[in-house]
């Protein structure tokens, strides 16, 4: 009998079975359910049911207000208000009000997604927690509503893709460049419904790098994108005061069966830029050099961590943002903001001309802040460049690494960070 992939093994464990096979349906009680500003719409669907049946368990939900913060209109304010009332009424402990940060960053910083756990969320980038060996995936609002009542959901056991990594990334080339390359190679649907499992030389990838990569798993359609637990992961949790005896990692068997195996030599990766309006339209930065950019955007759940801002500040220190462009700075959490205040990174970015936004989703989803005008072009560290994503269907979004965005801010046009 052949071994199991990570996805097969963890779903088998959670379903109380010794073996599962791709295509099989299993019923699972996830460890946590993440919802954000959309909590108000979710509880709206089941307000009567909550009265009749009650909440399944007050420790299941993790609620973070991050998408439109502070509220931008009476409608969004009412949404936040109804969430706070719900939290009070049911005594939900894992609630994080505005300013704490972007939901995915907060879940990881709070240790609410641990190795060997299953976490679902009503947000497509819930797959981020694969960075720490957690099986995590996005669901819709209706399913989140049903989970609040029953605590239970179903999964179809996915087939898996094995990605083996070799060597290290060159200087000024980042995890973002690698994931943009991978997505362009396998396509926006290349991993539809599948589990993407990373193997090989991982010790040079920090947790921050792994989050960037896992976060973008959904951009190739993946159900989950996951890294094994190693020294780097243990160190990350040690910093959070989470002892390694308090989680139970799981990893693929040596003889697991994959649908496809790919190998990447990280030392060959170059800075990448993904062109509008699809994430899989990635090209080397050399193909789009000198294209004018109206707005440069550093942040989001993909690239709004301390390392990202430090790498950007290395390029921007003592320089100024070009007068023909603007630079937005969006830390992924209060903790990130606090660290970049203390180490001087933020000073460098603001003195160069950066505009600081409150920790949250900000311009990423086009609901408020940093909305683009028709005909404008943004170079962004976010994960999605769909038409209309930043609020205007006639604007263009290019995706890149923090290094490429910082270098481009200096010249007001797309610039190879290795030449700055």
């Amino acid at each position, binding site marked *: 009998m052949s071994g199991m992939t990570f996805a097969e093994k963890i779903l088998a464990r959670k379903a109380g079975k010794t073996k599962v096979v791709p295509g099989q*349906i299993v*019923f699972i009680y996830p460890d946590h359910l993440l919802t954000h*500003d*959309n909590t108000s*719409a979710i509880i*709206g*669907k*089941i307000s009567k*049911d909550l009265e*009749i*049946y009650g909440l399944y368990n007050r420790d299941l939900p993790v609620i973070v207000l991050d*998408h*439109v913060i502070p509220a931008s*209109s009476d*409608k*969004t304010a009412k*949404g936040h208000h109804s969430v706070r009332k719900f939290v009070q009424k049911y005594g939900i402990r894992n609630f994080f009000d505005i300013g704490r940060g972007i939901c995915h960053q907060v879940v990881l910083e709070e240790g609410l997604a641990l190795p060997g756990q299953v976490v679902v*969320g*009503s*947000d*497509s980038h*819930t797959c981020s927690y694969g960075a720490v060996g957690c099986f995590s995936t*996005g*669901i*819709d*609002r*209706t*399913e989140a*509503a*049903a989970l609040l*009542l*029953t605590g239970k959901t*179903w999964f*179809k056991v996915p087939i898996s893709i094995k990605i083996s990594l070799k060597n290290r990334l060159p200087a000024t080339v980042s995890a973002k460049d690698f994931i943009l390359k991978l997505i362009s190679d396998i396509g*926006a*649907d290349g991993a*539809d*419904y599948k589990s993407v499992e990373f193997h090989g030389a991982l010790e040079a990838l920090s947790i921050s790098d792994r989050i960037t990569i896992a976060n973008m798993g*959904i951009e190739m*359609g993946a*159900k989950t994108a996951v890294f094994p637990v190693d020294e780097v992961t243990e160190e990350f949790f040690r910093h959070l005061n989470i002892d390694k005896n308090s989680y139970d990692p799981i990893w693929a068997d040596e003889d697991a069966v994959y649908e496809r195996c790919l190998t990447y030599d990280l030392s060959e990766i170059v800075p990448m830029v993904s062109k509008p309006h*699809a994430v*899989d339209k990635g090209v080397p930065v050399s193909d789009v050099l000198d294209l004018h950019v109206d707005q440069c955007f550093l942040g989001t759940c993909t690239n709004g961590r301390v390392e990202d801002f430090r790498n950007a500040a290395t390029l921007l220190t003592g320089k100024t943002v070009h007068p023909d462009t603007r630079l937005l700075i969006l830390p992924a959490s209060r903790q990130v903001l606090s660290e970049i205040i203390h180490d001087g990174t933020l000073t460098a970015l603001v003195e160069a001309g950066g505009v600081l936004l409150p920790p949250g989703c900000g311009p990423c*989803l*086009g*609901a408020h802040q940093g909305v683009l005008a028709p005909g404008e072009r943004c170079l962004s560290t976010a994960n*999605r460049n*769909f*038409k*209309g*994503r930043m*609020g205007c*269907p006639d604007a263009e979004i290019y995706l890149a690494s923090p290094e490429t965005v910082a270098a481009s801010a200096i010249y007001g046009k797309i610039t190879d960070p290795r030449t700055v």
Partner: protein
Amino acid sequence: MTIWFYGNQDGINTDMLFPGKYTYTCATADEIKPHLLEDLDPNFAQSVQKDDLIFAGKNFGCGSSREQPVLGLKSVGIQAVIAKSFARIFYRAAINQGLLLIESPEAVDAYSPGKPVSIDFINGRITVGEDTFGFPTLPEEVTAIREAGGLLEYTRKFLDSRLKNT
């Protein structure tokens, strides 16, 4: 019955089906309807009618976890969406709302304007003009959700029976 054909377009994403800027201000079917497919086909929302069909390319519904397009398509009475393939969260959301999705690249390729289309859901067959193609039906456990009328109805039935048994 109108057939809305987008079969030549792959990767029709959630922002094209329902722009992100409305996600925290529109939740009910009436609020959603005017913006359905806004950035894909500005004529759709005004002219769509009950029992219409949609044809699309690969990876339909990719992108955000955004159920408004599914809720919207269900509430205007779309009979089914036929695509070469669907993105996972969209597919799940459709099951949870009871919206019918048919994965059949052959049917999408076979269609041209004017050809009649008919669907046999029970046996998993779609006929386009002269040609009939099979499509995968849902596993039993999941069909139960659709048959109950969607996930919330299914959940209520389950919880009611549990209440009765205790």
